[in-house]
């Protein structure tokens, strides 16, 4: 299977471990990626909070490029996914907007490119049976809180990735690689998202609560599928500990890093050292990494 890959800006820098582990996992189950030619940032919250036209035009540029390549779009970032997919609905619902956007971006775009999140590709197009077959070291006894955040499942009429308030797609993938997903109520609570620099207090409170509730429900580790969720839950965890007056220490990994670990993929592709709350003590205690030495 071959997809048009839209990495998104975060996966080139702060979420480089998501990019590398996702490519490795997809490769291991036979998915080929072809980068979308000259893709442009989706505009994220900055665009749609300030300019509705820009928030449609930016994703339309990349979607039109994918259409030319004749490929479905695969993206790992929940924000990119939400923006790319929303623009399809917006231009389809509104012929006037469709015409305007096509004029603005200097090429026709009618909203017909299929946009898929990596969890959809792995869980639905590849399927959990094929994933089970690729597992070498099942994550037995690892209790994982799968955190979806807002953008993967919300606004169901546009996205439909899963149930809006209790998605299970990532849980199924973690179960397929032998992990034990915990049942917890904060799967789709907001982490504070793009307020990360401008409103840090809000972000620390919100992301702290997510980690706290995951831990209270017995999770050893959090699995995420969004670079901003990862950054907020991981980077601000020390601040959240101070705010809550509680020791947290819950590592936050991308679900692809965990899947790659179970598939026995090369550790340099999984970049487990690139997160702030060190997962090594937990992973070596559970016997998934020998000796706990990882450089």
């Amino acid at each position: 299977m071959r997809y048009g890959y839209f990495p998104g800006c975060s996966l080139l820098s702060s979420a480089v471990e998501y990019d590398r582990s996702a490519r490795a996992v997809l490769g291991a189950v036979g998915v080929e990626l072809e980068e979308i030619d000259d893709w442009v940032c989706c505009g994220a919250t900055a665009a749609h909070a300030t300019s509705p036209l820009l928030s449609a035009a930016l994703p339309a540029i990349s979607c039109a490029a994918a259409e030319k390549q004749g490929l479905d779009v695969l993206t790992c970032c929940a924000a990119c996914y939400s923006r790319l997919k929303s623009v399809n609905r917006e231009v389809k619902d509104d012929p006037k907007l469709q015409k305007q956007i096509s004029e603005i971006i200097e090429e026709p775009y009618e909203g017909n490119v299929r946009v898929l999140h990596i969890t959809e590709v792995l869980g639905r197009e590849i399927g959990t049976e094929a994933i089970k077959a690729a597992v070498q070291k099942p994550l037995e006894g690892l209790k994982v809180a799968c955190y979806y955040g807002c953008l993967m499942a919300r606004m169901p009429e546009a996205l439909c990735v899963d149930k809006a308030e209790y998605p299970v797609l990532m849980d199924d993938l973690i179960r397929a690689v032998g992990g034990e997903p915990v049942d917890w109520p904060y799967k789709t609570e907001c982490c504070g998202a793009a307020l990360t620099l401008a409103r840090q207090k809000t972000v620390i409170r919100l992301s702290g609560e997510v980690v706290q509730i995951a831990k209270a429900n017995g999770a050893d580790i959090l699995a995420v599928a969004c670079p901003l969720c990862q950054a907020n839950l991981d980077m601000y965890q020390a601040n959240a500990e101070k705010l809550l007056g509680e020791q947290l220490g819950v590592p936050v990994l991308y679900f692809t890093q965990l899947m790659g670990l179970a598939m026995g993929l090369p550790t340099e592709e999984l970049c487990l050292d690139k997160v702030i709350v060190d997962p090594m003590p937990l992973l070596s205690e559970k016997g998934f990494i020998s000796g706990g030495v990882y450089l």
Partner: protein
Amino acid sequence: MRWELADKALHSDFRRRVEELSGQNLGECYQCGKCTGGCPVLADIELSPNRVIRMIQLGLEEDVLTNESIWCCTACGTCNGRCPMGVDIVRILDTVRLLSQRSKYRPGALEVLTFYQAFLNCIRHFGRLNEIGLMGSYNINSGRLLTNMVKAPWFFMKGKISLSPHKIRRIERLERVFARIEEIEGK
């Protein structure tokens, strides 16, 4: 909090402009409050989502456009997901943020707007976001020079910061896209 419903407000075309730009019918909201019940930033804001809608219905333009609450929305979409009438509340908030920038009033939370502008400037110049460039430019423009600087060396050491910005090939076309939109949206 009290608002005076002056004649001017009642006859303002604020509600009509919001409805037109957002494509939403504000008459569909019957103030059930489910949007507010699920709003994650409720603890930090003065105007809850249902209140913002009520104020738009009443034509309270200045009170809405100058309030910082409208800039605290994370666009998580919980309100949209729970609205029994299917009102696109995020879209309404996007619209009032746009109107707030266009209006003669001063937006209520400049630091959030500054962040978004720094973000979009970066996209305009490179086509892709350079996170370290964004942090630097935000800190300079907002006057909060030390925001997250404690964490910067760590990112650098872990190879999570790419120092050479990724620039797209068709940057001239992107500049035209930005310029056209600025012209249409009248900023």
